[in-house]
């Protein structure tokens, strides 16, 4: 047959093509013959259902988890909210709007299952947390130098043995010490002494010397040395057979404590009851070093509230407040979280609430104009507060009646839950400058604060006193000036004109007046909700305090619609079973020198000022930077071991990369144990890795308290129990037959058992002697279940006796036993089980908002404090440990400055932009990059820049810009939009990872300090780890893996490779500020030691580019 010629063929085809109608007619038939490979995917049915607590962020909302049984094991299928919980609130077909309240706590479970609760995206996406391909499942030991990335699998037994007795890194020949070396209790016991007796007496002797120093009986080096020598002599004799060097860190410095202090337990994302559990462990070990990540969290805010109110946490009531100045507080993040804040937003949209959003970035919705953006220059917020206060003073817009109350009795008479020191007099000059004028100063018989009320009076003898007074009194023959506390504040506000304050903070005078007016008009249903934006910078404490001064003037504390502390919770630690007390003794200074004054140490007598490193006596919680600086410099003493749990300071702390030098150094840090779910930027340098469990499979079980204002309810705690049993490897069975899985819990228990620590093993837990049925009884502790069941028993029985918890119905008990994995351990607590079941079924214990206030609108909770201080005498008497200068004792506007008080304005001049690190409801800091249902919406972060700034710099959206900060250079994608104010660059925080059991070397920054930069240059190209050690995802079925990880390469969840989304974006933490006055360690806040969530920058380069997705959402 003659074939077609080419020309003919094409002609034919073109001819065919000329006709306009296409093959639509053919499509159905062809489609029937060849169709896309169809994979049926249906929504899942219901499996096991249970209520627990979320840990997508730290807000602790409730969750209802649906767990499906598949051929491949159990799968957490769907998560929604718990309608019993005040943050989730109840949602049903019939009640959809005004989702304000949760179900009444006693609603039968059967009925409650017809309702659901709201929940945010992170909580919803828990499945990606549990099934994270990077999760470690077996114990690991490093098989190369520190930070080489080489790890090998070891058995649980080997882990416990080496961590206690010491081990050898076979591959390098290094010897690693064990904890027994510093377990002083064990040494004393072995030598035949009663450790508690010996250590108690030793401690008493040290305390005696300390009190003598305080009373100025010991005032010089010789006197102190002689006391120390006597101490040494006594104890060397008493402890014949053991050298004092085996017991004390330094016998010349007995104030430093025993060698047990040389182990640190540092926790990052802590949580009940993990927190109480390792607190108990470290107490049992005998160390004072139980430290938390608070410096990278909200320490500035805490320290400020502590100065003002004596407690760390107070925020506005979400239900009844009418006007809130929400300053430096992230919409969609701050407690009550993206979930609970929904209530605030809804109320605002309905016109029930007005929010002034004081923030360099715009609010996420204007809620029909009821959320007003008040852009403020970062770091100048105190100026705004001062301006508002100035208006309030000038116009008389404050509650003078409340402020004039000088003592507790008068407050009770006036039906006020708290009172203030506004009327107390402060000595302004002379030796006692900064102190409160008291009876003893004037030669009176009492020592109460003096106020002015027709003359100088004992504050306890009058019901009210003058708010404003300037005068003179005579102390020890010298005349000094005095002013009332409120007068000092007023004068402070008047130190600048309204126009000048406005100029500093960038908020127009009109707006300032309007805010003051709205606050006053709606008092006491008005006030401030403040957080990190205010508190986490060098002058953070004074800034937060200035805002809280506004609340003080409004008189809104502990009231409906006003400022509330945290809800109460049940006695989960000691109601029936005393899970707290352990018999050991410890003393000394924590390595980070938090909560202790330099002047308390013997060093002060020997060396005076400056201290070698800063001491932070007034900070309520712990400081990463000073802990690492302390380890590095061996100050105040060298450390032997660090046990780091669920943390990542290298990434989370500002300029945390500096810590790598310390972590890598086996001389400064001989033993580094990491307890974690993945090997992150910090754990890369660990000697041993203990695999941990997530909140869905047995991690952080317990009764979670809620942060302020806890939905306004009287009592609230969310109960976290596992949805599935641990995914980590099983490591044994406890003597009472319970399974043990690799986790923080079992690690600490097994180490304690091997060491012979008090409070573990047989007879480890005492019954509460105040309870008849528990007196003289003891209980064993061999596995976590024996601990956690007793935690719930404590709460349940306290709840029962308080009338909150009832006996669960047989139906509810059956439900709990069928659905909750924890139920298999009910035999540990047979007498309490039916009450525990009641609480478990409801996911915790919650009371109702509506019954939480009395007829005067005062909260029925115990007041968080009695006294509010607008001048803090303790602060005014505290000296800066480096300069020896006293701190200013009241709210005040300060410019940003370093620890010694040197202003940084001049240094910052070269850097016109302030870089702020906002959060968003999509993620929580750096530990949430596995939430792929969120990552698909925001795959990378960027630098938000105002259009006018962008125009000047010639940048457009999608371009990559290089910004230079005082410490380094950062490459980041730019997004140009007016949701950030001029002069500010906002980089949403949470991305920029480079290590998470795999390594993706970061290319987006370089540091100016070559030594520190080399720590990143020196990153190994990958982590070498056997694939069997990781990844619980492998076990899942193909289909589920395809759904959960659609856009990733298969090797992400089949093998171990870096998946782009886990490592995309940047973190501005790496180029944050350092303090030259403290040896170029990260810059911290003065009082709290809080890290800084800002830096300063200039734009130095740009290159073309585009964003990964065509939309911008954060």
């Amino acid at each position, binding site marked *: 047959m003659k074939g077609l010629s080419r020309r003919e063929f094409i002609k034919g085809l073109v001819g065919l093509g000329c006709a306009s109608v296409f093959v*639509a007619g053919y*499509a159905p038939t062809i*489609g*029937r013959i060849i*169709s*896309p*490979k*169809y*994979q*049926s*995917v249906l*929504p899942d049915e219901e499996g096991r259902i249970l209520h627990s607590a979320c840990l997508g962020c730290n807000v602790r909302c409730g969750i209802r988890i649906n767990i499906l049984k598949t051929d491949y094991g159990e799968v957490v299928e*769907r998560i*929604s909210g718990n309608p019993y919980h005040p943050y989730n609130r109840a*949602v049903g*077909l019939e009640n*959809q*709007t005004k*989702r304000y309240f949760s179900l009444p706590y006693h609603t039968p479970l059967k009925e409650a299952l017809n309702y*659901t609760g*709201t*929940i*945010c*995206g992170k*909580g*919803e*996406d828990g*499945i990606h947390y549990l099934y994270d391909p990077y999760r470690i499942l077996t114990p690991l030991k490093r098989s190369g130098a520190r930070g080489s990335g080489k790890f090998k699998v070891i058995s649980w037994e080997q882990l416990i043995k080496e961590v206690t007795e010491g081990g050898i890194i076979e591959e390098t020949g290094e010897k690693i010490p064990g904890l027994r070396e510093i377990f002083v209790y064990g040494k004393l016991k072995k030598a035949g002494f009663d450790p508690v007796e010996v250590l108690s007496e030793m401690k008493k002797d040290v305390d005696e010397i300390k009190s003598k120093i305080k009373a100025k009986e010991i005032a010089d080096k010789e006197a102190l040395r002689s006391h120390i020598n006597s101490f040494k002599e006594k104890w060397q004799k008493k402890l014949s057979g053991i050298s004092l060097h085996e017991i004390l860190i330094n016998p010349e410095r007995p104030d430093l404590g025993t060698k047990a202090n040389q182990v640190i337990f540092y926790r990052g994302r802590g949580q009940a009851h993990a927190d109480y559990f390792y607190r108990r462990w470290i107490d049992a070990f005998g160390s004072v070093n139980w430290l938390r990540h608070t410096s990278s969290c909200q320490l500035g805010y805490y320290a400020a509230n502590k100065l003002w109110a004596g407690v760390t946490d107070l925020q506005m009531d979400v239900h009844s407040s009418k006007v809130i100045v929400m300053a430096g507080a992230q919409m*969609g993040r701050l407690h009550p979280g*993206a*979930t609970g804040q*929904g*209530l605030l*937003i*809804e109320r605002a*949209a309905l016109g029930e609430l007005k929010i002034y959003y004081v923030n360099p970035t*715009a609010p*996420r*919705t*204007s*809620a*029909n104009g009821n959320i007003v953006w008040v852009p403020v220059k970062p770091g100048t917020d105190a100026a705004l507060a001062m301006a508002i206060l100035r208006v309030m003073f000038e116009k008389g817009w404050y509650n003078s009646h409340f402020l004039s109350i000088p003592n507790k009795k008068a407050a009770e008479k006036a039906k006020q839950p708290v009172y203030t020191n506004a009327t107390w007099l402060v000595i302004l000059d002379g030796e006692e400058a900064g102190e409160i004028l008291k009876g003893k100063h004037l030669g009176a018989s009492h020592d109460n604060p003096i106020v002015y009320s027709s003359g100088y009076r004992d504050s306890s003898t009058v019901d009210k006193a003058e708010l404003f007074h300037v005068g003179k009194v005579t102390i020890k023959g010298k005349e000094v000036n005095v002013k009332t506390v409120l007068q000092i504040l007023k004068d402070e506000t008047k130190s600048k004109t309204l126009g000048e304050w406005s100029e500093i903070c960038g908020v127009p005078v009109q707006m300032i007046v309007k805010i003051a007016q709205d606050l006053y008009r709606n008092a006491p249903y008005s006030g401030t909700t403040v957080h990190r934006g205010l508190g986490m910078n060098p002058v953070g404490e004074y800034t937060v305090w200035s805002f809280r001064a506004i609340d003080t003037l409004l008189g809104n504390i502990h009231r409906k619609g006003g400022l509330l502390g945290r809800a109460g919770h049940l006695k989960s630690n000691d109601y029936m079973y005393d899970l707290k007390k352990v018999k050991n003794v410890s003393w000394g200074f924590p390595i980070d020198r938090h909560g202790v004054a330099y002047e308390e140490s013997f060093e002060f007598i020997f060396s005076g000022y400056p201290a070698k490193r800063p001491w932070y006596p007034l900070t309520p919680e712990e400081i990463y930077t000073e802990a690492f600086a302390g380890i590095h410099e061996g100050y105040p003493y060298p450390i032997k071991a660090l046990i780091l749990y669920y943390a990542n300071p290298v990434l989370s702390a500002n300029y945390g990369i500096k810590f790598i030098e310390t972590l890598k150094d086996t001389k400064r840090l001989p033993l580094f144990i990491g307890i974690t779910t993945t090997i992150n930027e910090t754990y890369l340098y660990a000697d041993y890795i203990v695999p941990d469990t997530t909140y869905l499979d047995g991690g952080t079980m317990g009764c979670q308290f809620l942060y302020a204002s806890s939905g306004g309810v009287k009592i609230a705690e969310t109960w976290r129990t596992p949805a599935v049993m641990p995914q980590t490897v099983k490591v044994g069975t406890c003597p009472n037959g319970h399974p043990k899985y690799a986790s923080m819990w079992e690690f600490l228990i097994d180490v304690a058992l091997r060491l012979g620590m008090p409070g573990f093993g047989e007879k480890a837990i005492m019954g509460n002697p105040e309870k008849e049925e528990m007196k003289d009884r003891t209980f064993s502790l061999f596995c976590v279940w024996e601990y956690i069941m007793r935690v719930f028993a404590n709460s349940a029985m306290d709840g029962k006796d308080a009338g909150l918890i009832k006996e669960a119905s047989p139906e509810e008990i059956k439900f709990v036993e069928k659905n909750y994995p924890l139920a298999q351990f009910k035999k540990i607590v047979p007498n309490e089980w039916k009450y525990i079941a009641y609480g478990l079924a409801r996911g915790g214990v919650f009371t109702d908002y509506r019954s939480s206030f009395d007829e005067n609108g005062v909260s029925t909770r115990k007041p968080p404090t009695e006294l509010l201080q607008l001048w803090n005498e303790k602060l005014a008497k505290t000296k800066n440990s480096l300069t020896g200068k006293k701190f200013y004792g009241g709210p005040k506007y300060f410019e940003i400055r370093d620890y010694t008080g040197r202003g940084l304005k001049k240094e910052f001049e070269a850097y016109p932009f302030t870089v702020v690190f906002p959060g968003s*409801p*999509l993620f929580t800091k750096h530990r949430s990059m596995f939430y*792929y249902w*969120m990552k*698909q*919406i925001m795959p990378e972060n960027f630098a938000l820049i105002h259009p006018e700034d962008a125009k000047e710099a010639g940048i457009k959206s999608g371009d990559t810009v290089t910004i230079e900060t005082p410490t380094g250079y950062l490459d980041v994608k730019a997004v140009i*939009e*007016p949701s*950030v*104010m001029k002069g500010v660059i906002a980089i949403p925080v949470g991305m920029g990872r480079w290590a998470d059991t795999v390594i993706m070397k970061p290319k987006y920054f370089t540091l100016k300090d070559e030594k520190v930069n080399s720590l990143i240059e020196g990153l190994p190209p990958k982590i070498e780890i056997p694939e069997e050690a990781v990844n619980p995802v492998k076990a899942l079925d193909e289909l589920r893996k*395809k*759904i959960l*990880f*659609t*856009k990733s390469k298969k090797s992400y969840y089949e093998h171990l490779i870096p998946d782009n989304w886990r490592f995309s974006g940047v973190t501005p933490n790496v180029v944050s500020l350092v303090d030259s006055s403290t040896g170029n360690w990260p810059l911290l806040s003065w009082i709290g030691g809080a890290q800084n969530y800002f830096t300063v920058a200039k734009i130095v380069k740009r290159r073309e580019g585009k964003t990964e997705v065509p*939309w*911008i*959402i954060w």
Partner: protein
Amino acid sequence: MARLKYRYVIDVSRCYGCMSCIAACASENNIPIGVFRTWVERFVKADGTTFFLPKLCNHCDNPTCVAACPVKATYKSDEGLILTNDEKCIGCGACIQGCPYGARFINPVKGVADKCTFCSHRIPKKLPACVEVCPTSARLFLKTEILNLPVHVLKPTTGNKPQVYYLNYMGVE
């Protein structure tokens, strides 16, 4: 063709972009990464005012997608929901082209056309997943055909008679 017996109402002033609805839908309906049955768009005005606009299938009463399907795989149910019979779908994409709201997509795991079903497997006993999780009550699912609210619909001139209604609509598409 049956009319929709439900009214899905979105209050734009309340949405604050927490994206929970997207995760809930993906979790409830096993939606793969990268495609969306419901989504939320973000807008920023010149003065920095920000707002979020949730979108999903409008379950139109005069659906162009149903008309476009050559194999009648997609249909309007007795309750007025627009649903798809996956087994019939040949994945030609005509319905995706035919939807003026961009609510449809090819599901990369299933291999067929996909879109929001108002969680037809749960309603009306339970709410659609996106509605139940919303912390601000920005999404409502009402079992009624009558709405006495000042509402808008998207692209009203398409003739599709979309049945998702917007309150406090900020005037964007």
